[in-house]
């Protein structure tokens, strides 16, 4: 083991509060990094890393998925989506199932691919599934600004973008959730900076550290959180300072708010959270696929017994759900937390379901 990793590990064990500490991370990439690296094996039992609603795919509502599927069933559109989204089940189907049935669903690495396709195929209606937090919404914003400048008439987005800081406030207000500190998302913060989290430290007296994604970043961040907690001086610190500046990326943040405005949003398994989503401003409303391709959706339902909501809020661990690894597995997922490449259930199943402590 690298000497520095040992130091960080030992420092956490030595300095952790006597009663233990609950630290929530709210970024799917952090969830995966923690599971994939076996990081929990380096932590004392009572330094409890909880996965919060950090996977945008996991928190996209069944209703939205049903709507997307309704669109490709009823209209001859070409739908572009990031790979993560394709297997998430709605009430009766998923985009992958629809593709297997012959619908034109394509995976893209960059949203630009969707716009390019629309440019090259002016007779085809092209819909891009715009999903993600503040790391990704500036990209959609740039896309739409360009589509508007070039007057592209056959391009739309199915918008499900959400915001992180107001969602964190909702978590703080939920009495069931016991969080002592937040590990804040690195790349969302590269866009928004550290200021949007200050209310968590000030009003809710909860330490926040903006962390990189390497296991060593997370270990450093955990040490910083513990130090803040012990000192009784909660604040927002940036561990990931090689990328994140306190002001974030002003050009990117400006792009978001040129095209979008905060609206209420439906978080799967959690419910409607006020002003936690992004909606298209009037000047961009012609790009709104949900409006341009209306669909009749029968009641969207969550599957029986699915505990994704509680898992997403960090109240339950994946293995506390009775369906986990029994009827809900990556090859037959029941809820989004298992199917998303960054869902907590997928992470636990893939890497930790036979949890081993290493002998040191």
């Amino acid at each position, binding site marked *: 083991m690298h000497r520095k990793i040992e130091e960080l590990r030992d420092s956490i064990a030595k300095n952790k509060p006597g009663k233990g500490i609950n630290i929530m991370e709210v970024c799917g990439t952090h969830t995966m990094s923690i599971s994939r690296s076996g990081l929990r094996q380096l932590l004392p039992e009572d330094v409890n890393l909880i996965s919060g609603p950090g996977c945008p795919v996991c928190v996209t509502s069944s209703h939205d998925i049903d709507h997307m599927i309704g669109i490709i069933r009823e209209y001859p559109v070409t739908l572009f989506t990031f790979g993560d989204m394709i297997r998430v089940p709605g009430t009766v189907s998923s985009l992958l199932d629809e593709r297997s049935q012959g619908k034109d669903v394509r995976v893209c690495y960059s949203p630009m*691919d969707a716009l390019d396709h629309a440019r090259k195929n002016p007779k085809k209606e092209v819909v891009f599934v715009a999903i993600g937090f503040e790391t990704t919404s500036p990209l959609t914003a740039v896309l739409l600004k360009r589509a508007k400048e070039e007057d592209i008439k056959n391009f739309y987005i199915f918008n499900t973008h959400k915001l992180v800081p107001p969602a964190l406030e909702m978590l703080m207000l939920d009495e069931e959730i016991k969080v002592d500190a937040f590990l804040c998302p690195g790349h969302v913060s590269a866009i928004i900076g550290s200021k949007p989290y200050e209310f968590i430290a000030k009003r809710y007296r909860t330490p926040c550290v903006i962390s990189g994604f390497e296991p060593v970043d997370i270990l450093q961040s955990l040490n910083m959180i513990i130090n803040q907690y012990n000192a009784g001086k909660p604040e927002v610190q940036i561990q990931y300072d090689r990328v994140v500046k306190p002001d974030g990326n002003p050009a990117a943040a400006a792009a978001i708010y040129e095209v979008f405005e905060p609206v209420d949003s439906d978080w799967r398994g959690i419910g409607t959270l006020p002003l936690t989503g992004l909606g298209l401003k009037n000047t961009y409303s012609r790009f709104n696929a949900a409006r341009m391709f209306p669909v009749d959706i029968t009641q969207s339902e969550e599957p029986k017994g699915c505990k994704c909501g509680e898992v997403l809020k960090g109240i339950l661990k994946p293995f506390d759900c009775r369906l986990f690894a029994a009827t809900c*597995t*990556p*090859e037959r997922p029941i809820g989004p937390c298992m199917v998303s490449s960054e869902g907590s259930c997928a992470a636990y199943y*893939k890497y930790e379901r036979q949890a081993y402590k*290493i002998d040191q």
Partner: protein
Amino acid sequence: MKGRLIKLINKFSDKIIQLAHGDGGLKTRQLIDHLLDKYLGNEVLSRLDDSSVIDIGPNKKLAFTTDSFVVDPIFFPGGDIGKLSICGTVNDLAASGAHPTAISLALILEEGLPVKHLEKILSSIKKTLDETGLNVITGDTKVVGRGNADSIFINTAGIGFIDDDYVISPEMIREGDTVIINGPIADHGLAILSQRQEFNFQADIESDCAPLASLVSDIKNASPNIHALRDATRGGLATVLCEIASRTLFDIEIFEDKIPVRSQSRGICEFLGMDPLYIANEGKMVIFVSSQDTDKVLDALKNNIYGRESKVIGKVSGKEKGSVFLNTQLGTRRLVDMHYSEQLPRIC
């Protein structure tokens, strides 16, 4: 010891075939275990070895294998569908310890395929046959309408003989065996990906497509204790290890810092969020050998053109539940699972 694959708990309930059924991972396993085995299963087939081996006389066995090739695009850095079709079958025969003897070749050509492409493929097939000393002794050609075959599909079947009593099969694996691989992983799958329009990147990467019969022959000569060999193709190194582990119930430990991956392969994987452990190879043999013969086998490998970058990557530990564990660079240990979904469609 019977070598039957542990049946997976989940039944095969899919109503239509998906691309994931062909990617070599979990869904492929389910298709085979629960549908194909239901109709076709028998003692030989159900062992699901790279080649099936049957007794044909005293101290003489026949190995028989077949494979179909649907790779898209048909020409890629480091090879083409022709070279692939011979290497794939040769390697399956070699993995059971057989000396490849003859090959069949069936071509399904798409209307509109330029003849000069076909000639290039045939030339590539010939070159690979010459290298391995093999001949195509029977074949078939069909042509289907435009749009029905993606230029060309190829099926090869191969036979080989095992004249010695050297048994190479997962049943022979023992606790303490060393696990070796003959070079860096993931190159083939990524070479294919680099040619696909939608991924839009350039990298100096070539398929590792290679016929490994000579390599297997060299290591058999170096040691009488090669216990098992597997050709790590679709589904990658991880899938091969998971299959062997679940079949034998031995746990397998591998070490992250020992697994050879070229830096540009790692780079592409970082970019696209993929894991090299699950990406296809076409010139990689996973070798299980008695630990005392590790050095002898490594020497023999490094003297072979296809084994210069061979590395010991792990070992077989005790008989438990048949799990594969990765010892990470961080100093922790975590599970390696069968990959579920299609990472890369049509890479073999």
